[in-house]
């Protein structure tokens, strides 16, 4: 009897603690967002969620840098004018690339007064954060996170700046077909190596579907695990045995580099290697790490626009951080700019009103390449998001498709 009384008392205490903690969290959130329409606010906080440490740290840190550059640019230009020149502030959270750490950080940022969130580089993490944002009624603008499923849940508070995996896969097949046709190559079948992750799998599915529409097929599709692939000689032998001369790759940096090395080592004769949403074939480091400087390698992915703003951003980034810009930095920049535009239009730092303003936004044209100003569909997809095809030509990552963005002419066969 005594035991059960103790247990009961303990249980009550625990519940009370949780309830109190919940109250204090809610109070803090209320305090942070007290600035209602018309009130003059000194600062507006945006929470960023990126992997600053862990295996994606290179991209995560670059994206933080990009977001910070947007905040600095807006503040330098006088802040949010409709809020009396309120300054933006970036509250940076390290997700470590895992959903649980990201959730903790997101809750902290929201309770510290963040009126919107950006992030998170990983689709798995964004899936969790989008649910959290919906519940907390705080807008969440994804910079990088490709999985289609994130925006198929009927969420109202989640938006995505980058093209979805399906869009990248489809546009990738279009680019391959267009480049081959332009060079007089009749493409009938391709081989495809892709990571087992959800994002890469949807890339392959979308690519294969669009390929069929364009008159060629994915002949040999081989899935691998990017976490353990350090050598792809067997996969390349499979491609060789199947007689595929064009190879499509969707992977991360280290595994895509391993594939490039295995291609060089095996001496297979390929017409082209085409990355689709690939993490290596348009990176500066690939130029130094790959055999023969990666010459001839293609990639289809989101990219920094050829526009003056886009090029200025790349130059400024290089000057400020002394390292070549990654596209993720531009997408994070755009995510902050879209939120700022929403703040400007709504004249309010209330997250619910901000959400409505972002959903109706079409005044900001991104520095990442798109077909026009960023505007969101009812599910939150950026309807203007586009990809470009790049090729490494003469030791430089050169845009070769579409024509209006191109800075060089595609070479096909590439080697």
């Amino acid at each position, binding site marked *: 009897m005594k035991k059960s009384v103790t247990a009961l008392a303990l249980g009550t205490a625990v519940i009370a603690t949780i309830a109190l903690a919940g109250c204090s969290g809610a109070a803090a959130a209320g305090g942070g967002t007290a600035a209602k329409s018309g009130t003059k606010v000194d600062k507006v906080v945006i929470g960023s969620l990126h992997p600053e*440490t*862990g*295996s994606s*740290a*290179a991209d*995560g*840190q670059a994206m933080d840098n990009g977001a910070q550059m947007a905040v600095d640019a807006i503040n330098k230009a006088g802040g949010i004018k409709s809020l009396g020149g309120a300054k933006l502030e970036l509250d940076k959270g390290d997700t470590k690339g895992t959903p649980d750490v990201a959730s903790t950080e997101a809750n902290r940022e929201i309770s510290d007064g963040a009126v919107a969130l950006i992030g998170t580089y990983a689709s798995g993490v964004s899936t969790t954060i989008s649910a959290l944002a919906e519940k907390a009624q705080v807008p969440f603008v994804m910079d990088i996170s490709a999985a289609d499923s994130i925006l198929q849940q009927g969420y109202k508070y989640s938006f995505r700046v980058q093209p979805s995996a399906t869009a990248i896969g489809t546009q990738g097949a279009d680019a391959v077909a267009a480049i081959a046709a332009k060079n007089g190559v009749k493409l009938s079948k391709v081989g495809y190596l892709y990571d*087992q992750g959800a994002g890469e799998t949807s890339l392959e599915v979308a690519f294969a579907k669009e390929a069929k529409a364009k008159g060629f097929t994915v002949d*040999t*599709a*081989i*899935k*691998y*695990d990017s*976490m*353990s692939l*350090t*050598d792809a*000689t*067997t*996969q*390349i*032998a*499979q491609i*060789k*045995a199947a007689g595929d001369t064009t190879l499509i790759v969707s992977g991360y*940096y*280290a595994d895509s*580099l*391993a594939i490039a*090395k*295995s291609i060089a*080592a*095996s*001496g297979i004769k390929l017409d082209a290697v085409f990355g689709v949403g690939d993490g290596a074939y348009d990176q500066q*480091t690939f130029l*130094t*790490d790959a055999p023969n400087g990666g010459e001839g390698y293609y990639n289809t992915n989101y990219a920094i626009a050829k526009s003056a703003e886009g090029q200025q951003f790349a130059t400024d980034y290089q000057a400020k951080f002394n*390292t070549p810009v990654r596209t993720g930095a531009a997408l994070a920049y755009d995510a902050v700019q879209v939120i700022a535009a929403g703040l400007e239009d709504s004249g309010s730092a209330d997250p619910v009103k901000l959400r409505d303003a972002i959903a109706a936004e079409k005044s900001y044209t991104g520095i990442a390449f798109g077909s026009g100003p960023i505007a969101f569909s009812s599910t939150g997809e950026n309807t203007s998001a586009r990809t470009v095809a790049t090729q490494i030509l003469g030791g430089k990552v050169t845009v070769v498709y579409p024509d209006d963005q191109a800075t060089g002419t595609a070479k096909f066969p590439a080697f």
Partner: protein
Amino acid sequence: MTMTQLDERLGETSVLPAARRRLHELLGQRFVRTIGVTVIVIAVVAIIAGLVSHSPDVVWQAIITGLLNGGVYSLIAMGLTLAYGVLHIINFANGSMLTLGLYLAYVAVHDWGMQPYVALLFVIPAMMAFGALTQKFLLNPVMNGASHNQLLVTIGLAVGLENLILLIAGPNPVSVTLPHGGSFSLFGATVDLGRLYAFVGAIAMVVLLSLILQKTPVGTAVRAVAANPVGASLVGVNIKNIYVLTFAIGGAAIGAAATLIAPFQSITPTTGDVFNLTAFVVVVLGGMGNVAGALVGGFVVGLTEQLAGIIFPEQSPLLSVFVVFLIVLFIRPRGVFGRAS
């Protein structure tokens, strides 16, 4: 008791495979049967892979790649199995120590202009010292405590190392280029020279570690501590020093592994993590604490990955590795070469 007497006694009761015991096993039915079964299973799987792919070339390449990768895996698992066999420490910092070794190799080659294999002369002693210091100052103080204390220390070390490297080296990938590297064709299969050297290095390391453990007085003392720490201390072995020495040898093994794989591995602060899981599988498959078992375990994992990748192209190769892992543990709970307790 002299060392010789001790050695004789250990010949009968050692927990680590003593030379005689191994010789008996080698000649004994069980060892031959194990190897035989392993080879037959791999041959059957290879034939299935051939039927699925319709291409002997692909299977041949898979076997070569599997063996070469297996060599790399066992190389990385060597330090892990040694630390477990003697110290009974599950070293979660194995992967981060590998990363540290990779960056040391990178510094030696890139900044100091050393030839990638000459860098062994720098990386091995450096990692040996790192291992010794780790054991002396971090692990020895908790050696008498519960085993999860040591585990937690190694996890802490792993997190600390990884983030320290991130802080100093930054997140961007770096790489070590092998001058006069390249590849050749072995009956149609591509053999990368860097990987071949690592493969040879793995076998050399198994031989070297076995010789040290079996033939030297120090090795005898190490095995004595592994078998019975109290008994070893009663006959005058300084246990704490042997712990330090063992972890130092483990560090040296990781240093050698890091330098040998550096020429074909993209290096980032989390590269070691990639191998961590595989290394544990290799060690458990081969029998915890068994150096030669780690070599065979590495080959089994390497071949499984490659052949299963052909048979089930739509599945992650890692799935097959774990299926094999579970089957082996079901039949042989102490690993392929583990001894019954």
